[in-house]
């Protein structure tokens, strides 16, 4: 019997359903023999049609370009470089490792997600100390593993305080295969109150673009990782950090505290 759910088959096959709808359809699929049979037909078609197509000659040099692309965009080095079995992360240079761990352990906070952030502060702090522990372990490990071939960050810059405030930080642009990513990590920052956040800005021709925000732990340490998707073509001149009264600002309200040229 045709059921309303059966109508989702085409969009399911073409990967057009939301994750939720997709899951619901898969549940329906378990019980609906019609859909199973029809999906099987569609799949058989995918397997079959290419075999009836005339093969086209690829453009010259495509093989090298494709394989190069895979190797240069791979976050994990190929097996001649693989190191300790217990280390899941590639060994990056110290600061980058820190920033990466922050991004892994702390979650990635985009501007939108920041709305819920202040209530999660405590949780965040706990994760931060874990991350720091991991960083120091990683740095120790790294010392006896210098010069082993690993992907290197594209750009790293020190963030310089604009006043004598003692704040420090690093900004790194890297690419782990999912597009360029800006990693910012700071130390010795002053405590935030209420909804305040530290906001990262990418700046081109004096126009700042909000590029992720973060809060800090009780030691004044914090960081954020920000996907620069689609914006990498732009010629960013500098990266800056300001303190904003609330997350989600499109334009800085607070003063720029740290800055670095890219």
């Amino acid at each position, binding site marked *: 019997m045709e059921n309303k759910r059966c109508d989702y088959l085409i969009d399911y096959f*073409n*990967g057009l359903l939301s994750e939720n709808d997709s899951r619901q359809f898969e549940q329906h699929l378990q019980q609906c023999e019609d859909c199973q049979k029809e999906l099987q037909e*569609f799949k058989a078609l995918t397997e*079959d049609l290419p075999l009836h197509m*005339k093969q086209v000659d690829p453009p010259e040099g495509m093989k090298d*370009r494709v394989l190069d692309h895979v190797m240069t965009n791979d976050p*994990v080095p*190929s097996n001649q470089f693989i190191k300790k079995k217990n280390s899941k992360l590639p060994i990056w240079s110290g600061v980058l490792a820190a920033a990466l761990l922050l991004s892994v352990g702390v979650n990635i906070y985009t501007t939108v997600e920041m709305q819920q952030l202040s209530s999660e502060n405590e949780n965040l702090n706990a994760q931060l100390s874990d991350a720091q522990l991991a960083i120091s372990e990683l740095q120790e490990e790294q010392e006896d593993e210098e010069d082993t071939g690993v992907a290197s960050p594209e750009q790293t810059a020190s963030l310089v305080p604009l006043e004598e405030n003692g704040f420090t930080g690093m900004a790194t642009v890297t690419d782990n295969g999912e597009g360029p990513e800006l990693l910012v990590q700071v130390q010795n920052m002053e405590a935030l109150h209420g909804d305040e956040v530290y906001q990262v800005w990418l700046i081109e021709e004096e126009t700042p673009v909000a590029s992720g925000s973060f809060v800090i732990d009780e030691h004044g340490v914090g960081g954020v990782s920000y996907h620069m998707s689609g914006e990498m073509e732009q010629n960013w001149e500098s990266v800056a950090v300001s303190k904003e009264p609330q997350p989600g600002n499109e334009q800085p309200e607070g003063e720029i505290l740290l800055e670095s040229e890219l």
Partner: protein
Amino acid sequence: MGKPTDKELYERIQMKDKAALELMYDRYEKLLYSLAYRITKDPHFSEEVMQDVFMKLWNGKGAGQYNEDKGKFSSWLLTVTRNTSIDLLRKKKEVEYQWDERDSLQEEIPSVEKEVEDQEKRDELTEAMDTLPDEQQRMIYLFYFQGLSQQNISKVCELPVGTVKGRIRLALKKLRENLATERRVDHGK
């Protein structure tokens, strides 16, 4: 030493064996490229698809994760390639859709005459498609090669949404019959 199977190669690729990736590439380059080209109709897009597919294979996660539940390896890899191709097509066309969904969809309807003139590109699939009525060709084209939603197919073909699936299945059934006939003619099977 015999040739490694697809599955063995895939497993070596998951161990980040670069040589295995190259072997896999050589084995499938033409087939996958031809499929991508058939869908995107553009050599640059097709190369982008190839990069994406082999990136997925190398990373082995999400869409690039293969196991035996997914059927034969070659079928799975073709599915990944088709999906990557229609995804890319959608991305490139997103701007157009926003501009005027209806008009740009109309442009995608294949010109049957042009395909016939283009003797170079003729193959079993084209032959088998040509014998179908225009409407059936269009259903297959929009559904399989463009990956359009049921809703959009109904709009473009001016059919009630509820009838789209039935029409697609009918068209596919016809196409399969034609392909079987082609095979017999071409290879005396």
